[in-house]
């Protein structure tokens, strides 16, 4: 057997040696610095029930963190922690406090660490957290159908109206769809970045959103063009339904979480808002299909792909929410929408080239702006 040349062995050896050196001699000690460890704790999930308050916490201190005491509303309370003891960096623990919380009112939880640092966790409106049960799943599922499937389906039912449109009308509808997608892209990114801010800093939530968006967009692009040409017709509609579906997943997550935390009062007004808001999405999905015969099966499948993720989102948001996972999904959603925007634009560009009609650019701009405006104005009903 031939001996390995030294230049293959040296880098790993040096690395191991360096790590060993740093672990034995802290570089801070060379500077004679004795800074206290960084302590940070985030609450990823709050559960309120008849047992009191249960919090899932994730530590992100530079060293394992110890929760020494817990205050609720400025009073010390006994608590149990599972698993007990110091919480390692990025590990989670569940803290249960038998606190008689008051429905509809605010509470303020504070963790006191062994070094005397306070980590605060406000509960803005205390409401019983839905427990996992068939009834809860059905209830939230039903809400998800209202927010996702129903409006998308209704939008798609406008297909006959679109079918009678001429070339100009079609261009208008397609550019309107483009405007709608542009709105969804910004909206999804914003939602994702906002959620990323609630995740542990170490997870680099905002970077996660951008990376997920980029990778998802490129992957869908590659899949969509695996036969060498851009998707059209049913394929384009499918990608659009996928992108919109991922956006609706994020929307479901946001509503489910906010609902469970009592952050939004979901009255009928808000549901009407979501229906109007998402109606345009259904319109967009069928727009690329106007030149071909539409089968019911395709139609149902597309509606399900675009609308049902809202149901999943609501379930997850209400029952098993984690901000970093939600941010990641919204990043993927943004990427999927971007891919559809690119493909739809490519498709429109080809249409413009082939068409003999004049003034299409102005019409396109009008359509795009209208799409944005419709989405923006219906969002006025649902943004809080």
């Amino acid at each position, binding site marked *: 057997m031939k001996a390995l040349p030294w230049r293959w062995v040296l880098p790993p050896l040096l690395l191991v040696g360096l790590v060993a050196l740093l672990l034995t001699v802290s570089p801070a000690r060379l500077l004679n610095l004795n800074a206290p460890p960084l302590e940070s704790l985030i609450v990823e999930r709050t559960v309120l*029930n*008849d*047992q*009191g308050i249960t919090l899932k916490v994730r530590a992100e201190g530079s060293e394992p963190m*110890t929760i*020494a*005491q*817990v*205050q609720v509303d*400025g*009073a*010390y*309370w*006994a*608590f149990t922690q599972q698993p007990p003891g110091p919480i390692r960096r990025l590990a989670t623990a569940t803290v249960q*406090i*038998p*606190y*008689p*919380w008051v*429905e*509809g009112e605010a509470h303020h939880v504070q963790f*006191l*660490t*062994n*070094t*005397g*640092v*306070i980590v605060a966790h406000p509960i803005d*409106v205390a*409401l*019983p957290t*839905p*427990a996992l049960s068939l*009834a*809860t799943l*059905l*209830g*939230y599922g*039903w*809400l998800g159908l*209202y927010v996702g499937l*129903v409006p998308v389906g209704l939008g798609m039912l406008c297909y006959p109206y679109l079918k009678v449109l001429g070339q100009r009308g079609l261009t208008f509808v397609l550019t309107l769809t483009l405007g709608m997608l542009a709105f969804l892209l910004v909206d999804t990114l914003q939602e994702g970045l906002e959620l990323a801010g609630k995740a542990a800093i170490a997870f680099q939530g905002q970077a996660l959103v951008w990376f997920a968006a980029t990778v998802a967009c490129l992957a869908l692009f590659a899949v969509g063009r695996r036969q060498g040409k851009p998707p059209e017709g049913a394929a384009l509609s499918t990608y659009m339904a996928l992108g919109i579906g991922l956006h609706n997943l994020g929307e479901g997550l946001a509503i489910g979480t906010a609902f469970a935390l*009592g952050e939004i*009062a*979901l*009255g*009928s007004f*808000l*549901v*009407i808002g979501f*229906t109007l808001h998402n109606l345009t999405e259904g319109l967009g999905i069928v727009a690329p299909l106007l030149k071909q015969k539409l089968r019911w099966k395709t139609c149902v499948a597309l509606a399900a792909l675009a609308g049902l993720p809202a149901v999943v989102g609501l379930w997850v948001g209400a029952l098993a929410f984690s901000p970093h996972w939600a941010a990641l999904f919204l990043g993927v959603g943004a990427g999927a929408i971007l891919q559809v925007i690119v493909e739809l634009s490519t498709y429109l560009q080809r249409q413009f080239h082939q068409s003999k009609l004049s003034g299409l650019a102005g019409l396109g701009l009008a359509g795009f702006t209208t799409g944005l405006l419709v989405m923006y104005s219906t969002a006025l009903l649902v943004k809080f």
Partner: protein
Amino acid sequence: MDWHVQRRSLLGAGLLGAGTWLGQRFAPTVLAQDHALAPPHQGMTTLGEVDHIKNGFDPHALLTQWDGGEVSQLPNGQRLREYDITAIEREIEVAPGVFYPAWTYNGQVPGPTIRVTEGDRVRISFTNQGTHLHTLHFHGIHGARQDGIPGVMEAAPGQAVTYEFDAKPFGCHLYHCHSVPFKRHLHKGLYGAFIVDPDPQRHPDQVAAARSRLLGSSENQRWQELLMVMNAFDTNFDEENEVYAVNSIPHAYMKQPIRIERDRPVRVYLINVTEFDPINSFHLHANFFDYYDHGTTLTPTSRTVDTVMLCQGQRGIIECSFADFDPGLYMFHAHQAEFAELGWMSAFEVVA
């Protein structure tokens, strides 16, 4: 916000027709879950126990740890009491599992309880083993050169100074560091009790009252005397206290109540050194007491009260009796519920 109504209005909207029957079937159970509160319990407390041995001071011992100093007689016949006090920076456990970088006198917070008699000469050799300037500033009557303020009898790190003065007036007083920044030097733990017992010979009209206060006299031995320094700790240095207590350890006298013999009267030397909060208070359950503001009188300044309010640095003497009371737990605490819930909650266990 009424959850039930919100939910019904949502589903009852019957926006798309089909919703109504499903809504009726699931709405009541889905989100408006039966929410019965947990039964009353004893959950409101700090969790665990402070290691008093490692801390170097025990709040139960502090209650009665009177330090008379090294006693001798001056050539003029005056009694001399000598003390050694050292400023030491050390970490102490201020609540179970919570460690605080304290500044201490002789390693404990509050510092040693200096208890002397009116007219005694007090000589204190003060050594600063810390890394900042420190002083001993006594609340009492003394000359300006003994005041222990910045620039006057202030000990630099590693240095020692000696304070000397006659103990007066009689009463319940305190000493603390007066170096700047003032707040920080106080709330880090540099304070202690300075109790001056009245000399009965100087109060011929109230000999009996004076003798009952004089530590060691036969009249005094009937009394159950307790030191209570109301203090607090700002563990995260945001100028608000996280921990409130008497004698530093929150809930110490709740987890292990102070044993009181029913037929012997109780006297509490109460001192407020709480920083940041302008006032603190003492409230006794199921009983009333006489109160001597600053302890500088032999007749009460308030009679038959159950709550007194003390500003920062204020102190006084509480006298009460549990004679003929039912044996059992009698709570006492700050009547600021905030302080009580953050640790300043205590109880006497009255035994027959």
